[in-house]
């Protein structure tokens, strides 16, 4: 056998990080969510932020893979399998991030026995489950080479992929209590899923090209990069629409806007606008850059980071100023009481704690590990098969 693929050392590192994450999660189960930086003012934190990011990241893979069939884009077909692996892994990471965020995970069966179908959170549980099943079916059928089933599934996969991002957006966008309340939330989530998802897919494809699992030709690279530039532009347009709508009346959401432009969430906001949208768009708008691997990696990494920053400002801006303000503000909760000192907060503040960060790192590491293992098994194996054993069908079938 050839020594292609991800090395055992790399897998060992991510495996170890996963174990650290699991240890921290057990620590959190014992101590409660009080071991995180969340409080009664900022009641969602890093977990939900990263959940939004990874739901979005899972978009690229499945959308590119199903577009190959739905729109008959032949050149996308060779990358369909690694794309779906990436998509599957990302949605699993997103699901795990929700699980670690639950305070009463031992009662999670209540979702099945007494579901409230008015809750966007329940819609999300349903659609993510469907999405995961589609991803796994897609992967299994691709592996078995049942192309007709894969083609038919693509017609379902594409609309479901759009819905996953919309429903995740509605968790936030339907809440009249917060600055999230806007009809453009779903389009923004779809747009940022498309650009960050495609950017991550490009990074993943370049990586498996580098370790010699599957080749990524310059022509395909250039056309994916061009598509990425288009997605960035769409994302920027939607964000621009929302900003203008927030700013123009000079009332209502002005407080939220001021936090974004010059307040606590401003660094993340401006990084996204400049680093996550403007710079990568300019890089990829120049045709020559689209075949330069370094440039594509830079632009893609900036897009993923930019969208991560967007999740941060989007989530936290709404937790800063309470709707009903006044001293002494909001009582922080039991965790604040345990720490002693002042429990009161006039405005919401938040910083993740070490266990919280390590849990997120652990969950993501598990995803990276799964991506490596699946790529080694499914993609690299296939390459070898095609090169070595094209004549004998029996060997292929036995495999």
């Amino acid at each position, binding site marked *: 056998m050839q020594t292609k693929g991800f090395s055992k050392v790399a897998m060992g590192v991510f495996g170890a990080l996963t174990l650290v994450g699991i240890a921290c999660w057990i620590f959190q189960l014992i*101590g*409660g*969510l*009080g071991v*995180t930086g*969340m*409080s*009664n*003012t900022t*009641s*969602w934190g890093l977990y939900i932020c990263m959940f939004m990011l990874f739901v979005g990241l899972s978009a690229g893979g499945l959308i590119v893979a199903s577009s190959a069939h739905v729109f008959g884009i032949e050149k996308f077909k060779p990358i369909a399998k690694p794309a779906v692996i990436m998509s599957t892994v990302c949605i699993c990471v997103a699901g795990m991030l*929700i699980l670690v*965020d*639950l*305070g*009463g*995970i031992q*009662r*999670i069966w*209540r*979702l099945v026995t*007494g*579901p*409230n179908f*008015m*809750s*966007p*959170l*329940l819609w999300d*549980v349903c659609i993510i489950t469907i999405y995961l099943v589609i991803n796994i079916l897609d992967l299994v059928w691709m592996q078995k080479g049942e192309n007709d089933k894969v083609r038919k599934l693509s017609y379902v996969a594409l609309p479901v992929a759009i819905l996953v991002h919309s429903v995740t957006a509605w*968790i*936030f966008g*339907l*809440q*009249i*209590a*917060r600055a999230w309340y806007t009809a453009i939330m779903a389009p923004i989530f779809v747009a940022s899923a498309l650009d960050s998802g495609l950017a991550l897919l490009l990074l993943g494809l370049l990586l498996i090209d580098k370790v010699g699992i599957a080749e990524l030709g310059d022509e395909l690279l250039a056309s994916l990069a061009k598509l990425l530039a288009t997605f960035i532009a769409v994302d920027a347009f939607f964000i621009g629409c929302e900003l203008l709508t927030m700013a123009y009346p000079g009332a209502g959401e002005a407080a939220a806007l001021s936090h974004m432009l010059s307040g606590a969430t401003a660094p993340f906001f401006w990084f996204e606008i400049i680093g996550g949208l403007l710079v990568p768009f300019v890089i990829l708008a120049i045709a020559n850059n689209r075949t330069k691997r370094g440039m594509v990696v830079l632009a893609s990494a900036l897009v993923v980071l930019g969208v991560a920053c967007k999740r941060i400002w989007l989530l936290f801006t709404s937790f800063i100023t*309470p*709707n*009903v*303000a*006044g*001293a*002494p*503000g*909001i*009582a*922080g*909760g*039991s*965790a*604040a*009481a*345990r720490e002693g000192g002042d*429990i009161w907060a*006039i405005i919401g503040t938040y910083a993740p704690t070490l266990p919280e960060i390590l849990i997120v790192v652990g969950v993501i590491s598990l995803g990276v590990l799964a991506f490596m293992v699946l790529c080694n098994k499914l993609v690299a194996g296939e390459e070898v098969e095609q090169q070595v054993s094209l004549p004998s069908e029996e060997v292929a079938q036995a495999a």
Partner: protein
Amino acid sequence: MTKLALAINQKRCIGCQACAEACKMENNVGMGMLWTRTLTEGSDVMDAAVGEFPNLRMDYLPLGCQHCENPACQKVCPTGATYKDEMGRVEIDYDKCIGCRMCMAACPYNVRVFNWTEPVHDPETGYGDATVPVRHKGVMEKCTLCKQRTDNGQKPMCVVCCPTHARVFGDLDDPNSEISRLKRERTVRILLEEMGTEPQVFYFV
């Protein structure tokens, strides 16, 4: 039908926080958490006047669950742990709460409190009415309108302990009740009325 409600006279409120303490004691609310609290409106400092001398004012706003008729928290709860009961109160079934905190994000009034850790009580034995359910870490809680008392026709503890009689408790579905009369006849203020949550708690002067 019954629609239990609370009316708060802002002219009478002196910001003594007796309601907050009475509620905490009655309902065994842990340290660092309160089901009702009294805000000094428009100020970053408690009991501070707002404005420029000599045009100063100091207004108190007791704030707890508004027991909305269109409760944003109830709508978003994935397991139905938050529900509107037959007496018109918004209640939580602690056994169903999975601690996702969706309701906390949805409530416009910031009146829900979460057990981020196992609750701390001082004294550790706990306090209050023995029939109040115990809440452990990982569940949401908030004003129940003293369910254990109002079920039996008693008034909530915040109403009983208010030294200036600023709080009026009653049934809005009974047109002859004091609270219905107040809602008809007085200048009524509804918190964040524009959000359409239709609170059953209202303020009057």
